[in-house]
Every structure is written in C-alpha cells, then in structure tokens.
C-alpha cells in the first residue's frame, strides 16, 4: 500500500508525520519511506545515517552531432519549450528548458540529435532495521523536480515491490511536482494547521487529490491554535479527520533537533496507530 503525505502549505508537518509514522510502523513490519520533496528533502535528518546506496539521477536531453546536422531547422521548430535553437551555424540546447519529450531527436531527419543523460540530482538510500529509506535530491540550479521524483518512486517500487507499506513524503504546493508524487498513491494524508492559511491551502490540496479519486483524510497539526474552520470544512465536505496533533512547543523543539516525536511523547503512538488504521481500513474497505 502506498500512502502519500501531502499538504498545500509548507511547514504544516508533512515530514514530521512521514518520519514518525514510518518509524512507528517499522517497529512491527517492513516499511519504505520515500522522501519526494526533492527540492528540500528533510526526512533523512530524523534517521541520521549515511547513505548505503547512491546513484545519480538523470534526465534525457538532446546532444547536437555537428557532423550529421544539415541545419534544416526542424528541431527548433518542433520544440514547444524553446529549448533548442539555431544560432548561426550551430544548434544550441538549453538543458534547463528541455522537457525530454524527444520530439527534436525523433523528428531530426539526419539523426543528429541523439538523447543523452544529463545529471539533475542524486538518489540515496539506507536501511535502519525494518525501515527502508529512499530520497531523491535535486541538484541546486536544476529547475525541474519531476524527473527526480519519478526516479525515486521507480527505484523504491522496483526494489521493494507493491505489497510493502510505502510512505511518500511529498512536496508542498499543488503543481506538477505534487501531482507526480501523489498520482499513484492508494491513500493520501493531508496535513494541515487550523489557521486560515492552513484551510485555504487544504482546500487546494483537496481539489488536487479529488482529480485522482483515491481516498484521503486530514490530519490537523498544531490543534488548538487558530480556529475551528478546518474542522467545520472537513465536516461539510465529509472528509475524515484522521487525527489531531496538539499544538505543542515541546514537539517543535524535538523536531528542531531532528528527533522522532513519538519516542519522547508516547501519547503520539496512539495517534499514529489511529492514522495507520484509518489508512488501511479506507484502502481495504474502499470507503470515502
């Protein structure tokens, strides 16, 4: 089962829930945690282990073969992203604009634009007891997060298979990186906070996940600050609230030092169990 932990707003507690839920479940069974927030991956901080496996993440871009090129100009005409242009007697590729669609390469009549890999990030993994950790990490200056997210997911699913519980720590927002992260999840947990910012961005996240149709639920973090509007919204929309995590400076302090909260605050174990039960029940029972 694949559980994506997402939120529209950043800093609501996605990584806190992902790492604590994964470590908690790993006390009894094998779990895979995949950090898909490739722009700012933070989950590994909570396990403090060096990577045991590393590989480079590539995307495919065209490479100009001057010896074959007749400067016909088709490549720049077919590129919808302005990633390849003719500059005098040369063809110039802008890798950061390239979407790896292969149109220039495939439609070049001379075969003068073979696709070659270009590094965009790094994948890392380690094992801590029952917990298998995988992280995608975008290189600084690279703009497209999607290939790195896709690679981390593919690596995790090929290595560990579909039967093992897999948790995706997803990026914030509602645009293409989030879509890539959550699209094949069996269940999505949205973490929010009970403020107007939390509510506004939760609504966007709900709209996003409803496009896919998988079951989802909400975890309200920092419960007690703000107001009741998030709960009222969930009631109205019949979205299950899986858990409420109280607003607590102590939890923020534990997070700040890279500690797993449930190990220091045992009450959180019940919360994590409830969240896990709700996910499994929703996926098995096909409710919501």
């Amino acid at each position, binding site marked *: 089962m694949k559980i994506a932990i997402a939120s*529209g*707003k*950043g*800093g*609501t507690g996605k*990584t806190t829930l992902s790492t604590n839920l994964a470590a908690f479940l790993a006390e009894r069974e094998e779990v895979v945690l995949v950090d898909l927030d490739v*722009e*700012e991956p*933070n989950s590994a*901080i909570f396990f403090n282990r060096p990577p045991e496996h590393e590989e480079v993440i590539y995307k495919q871009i065209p490479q100009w073969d001057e010896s074959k090129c007749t400067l016909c100009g088709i490549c720049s005409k*077919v590129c*919808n*992203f302005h990633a390849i242009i003719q500059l005098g007697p040369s063809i110039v590729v802008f890798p950061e604009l390239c*979407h*790896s*669609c*292969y*149109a220039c390469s*495939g*439609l070049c009549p001379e075969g003068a634009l073979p696709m070659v890999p270009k590094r965009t990030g790094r994948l890392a993994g380690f094992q801590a007891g029952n917990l298998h950790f995988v992280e995608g990490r*975008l290189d*600084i*200056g*690279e*703009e*497209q*997060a999607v290939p790195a997210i896709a690679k981390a997911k593919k690596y995790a699913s090929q290595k560990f298979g579909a039967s093992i519980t897999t948790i995706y720590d997803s*990026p*914030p*927002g*509602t*645009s*293409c*990186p*989030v*879509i890539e992260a959550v699209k094949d999840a069996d269940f999505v947990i949205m973490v929010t*906070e009970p*403020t*107007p*910012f939390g509510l*506004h*961005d939760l609504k*966007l996240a709900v*709209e*996003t996940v409803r*496009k896919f149709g998988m079951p989802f639920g909400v975890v309200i973090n*920092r419960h007690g*600050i*703000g*107001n009741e509007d998030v709960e009222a919204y969930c009631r109205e929309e019949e979205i299950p609230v899986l858990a409420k995590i109280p*607003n607590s*400076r102590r939890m*923020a*302090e534990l*997070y*700040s*030092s*890279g500690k797993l909260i449930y190990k220091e605050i045992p009450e959180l174990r019940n919360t994590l169990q409830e969240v896990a039960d709700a996910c499994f029940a929703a996926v098995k029972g096909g409710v919501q």
Partner: protein
Amino acid sequence: MKEIVVISGKGGTGKTSVTASFARLAGEEVVVADCDVDAADMHLLLNPDFGYSEDFYSGEVSFIDQSNCTRCGICANTCRFDAISFTRGAYRIDPISCEGCGYCARVCPTGTIINKPRLSGKWHISNIRTGSLMVHAKLDIGADNSGKLVAKVKNEAKELALEERKSYVLVDGPPGVGCPVVSSLSGANFVVLVTEPTLSGLHDLKRVYELVKKFHLKAGCIINKADLNPEQCAAIRKFLEEENIPHLADFPYDEDFSRAITQGTTIVEYTNGNLKQLLAESWEKIKELTN
C-alpha cells in the same frame, strides 16, 4: 525602484507573515507581489479587491479529434509522459499528464491531434488595505509552468511600481529551490532569507543560499522562532558568519504569528509588543542594505 524577494527554502518558516508585515510597514512605497502561486496566502492578510483579473495561458495541451482517429496508436507510443492511453475504445489524452510538447500531433498520420493553448491560472492586480497595490495569482491545480506565472506576476508588479513611482517591489517567494524559486529570484536586488533554528531549517537554508549565490544576489537573514533551539540557532549564526550574510534579526517563537493569521491581519497590526518593533527595525535594515 528596487526588488526585494523573501524566500526560505523550507516551507512554514513565516515568510508570508513577515512579508505581509513589511507590506504594512512600507504602506504606499511598495507594490506587493505574491509569487507563491501554488499556495498563495498573502491575500488572506491584505484584503485585495481583485480589481483587475486576467486569464493566464501557458504552453499547450493536446486533444484527439475522435472522429478522424484510426486508432493506430502511434501517438501513445510516441508520448514520453504516459499521457495517452487506450480507454473505453479510444485513445485519450490525460490533460494533467500532457506536457504540451506536441510530439503526438506531429507524428499522427491523419493529423487528428490538435494543440490548444493551456489555461493554467489567473492573475490579479488589487488595491490592498495598506494603501498600495498587489499583484497575485492562482495557478490551476496540477498546472505545469508555475515558474512562468511567477515571472508574469513579478513583471506586472515591476511595471506597476515604475508607473506609480514606487520605491520597491516586495515579493513573497515560494518554498523550495526549483523553477518557481529560480523565477522569483531573477532580477532581485535583495533577498531576505527567513529561516528557523531546526535541523531542517538550516539544511534548507544552505541549499537555497547556494542558489542565491549562483545568481550573485545580496541577501540577509531573519531567524524566526530563534529561541526554539539555542544550539541550532548558534549553528545558523555560524553559517551566516561564514558566508558573510548579514543577520537581520532574531524573532522569538511567538504564537502571535498564528493568532494574527487567524484574525486575517498582519503581526504589526495585531500586536504592539516586541515583535512589532523587531519587524520595523528589520524592514529599515533591509531598505538600507538594498539601496
């Protein structure tokens, strides 16, 4: 006219609360740009009137005209984004997965695939209650090209600032280090980094600062929730010293941040306490360093 961009790397460090407070303090001297177009929240604090709105089209999306389709399947084999599948007896393009490269349309033997401009959001120019103007936007769910919408919002804000003879464009940036962040940094005169003393906060600050350095931009840093973890706070200060980044201020861990948001107002309006003073001093420092 100078452009000041507020970013953080990590989400939830208080960027928007801080930026909205600066907007309040600056009043008529700034045009505000909310460039967190994925999850724009600044409008919840500054009461924009959505005075002018325009659709934002970016890139294309492909459609199959079913009446001429011979079901040859070349399009599906060509698509690198798994956007075309054979369902309910026909090839169909999933608009969310389609990146608009148009390769399918070019290889379709019957010319039955067409590309249409993709409506991917809306942007607005608003009067806000600080006596100034704000440019803001909403990206459609799942849309690509948030970087382009960020660029649009910024450029509109710049033009307005020039027309209206404002001193600054104040930009609330998105989290992360990817395309929307790169887009909001381009052309900035000063970057305000808002961080928090957590291991994640510092980790993300280092990454986003590497990006700031690539663009050779001047920056300063605010440590929010500074008293949450003295050890991490010291680690951030050390990093700022090593990198010669001016340390603009330490803000305390203060639930007034959340309370002000809940009241739909800025911190400097919500409280008369120490935090208001610190924000005012920071804004003055930022202006000094920008000019």
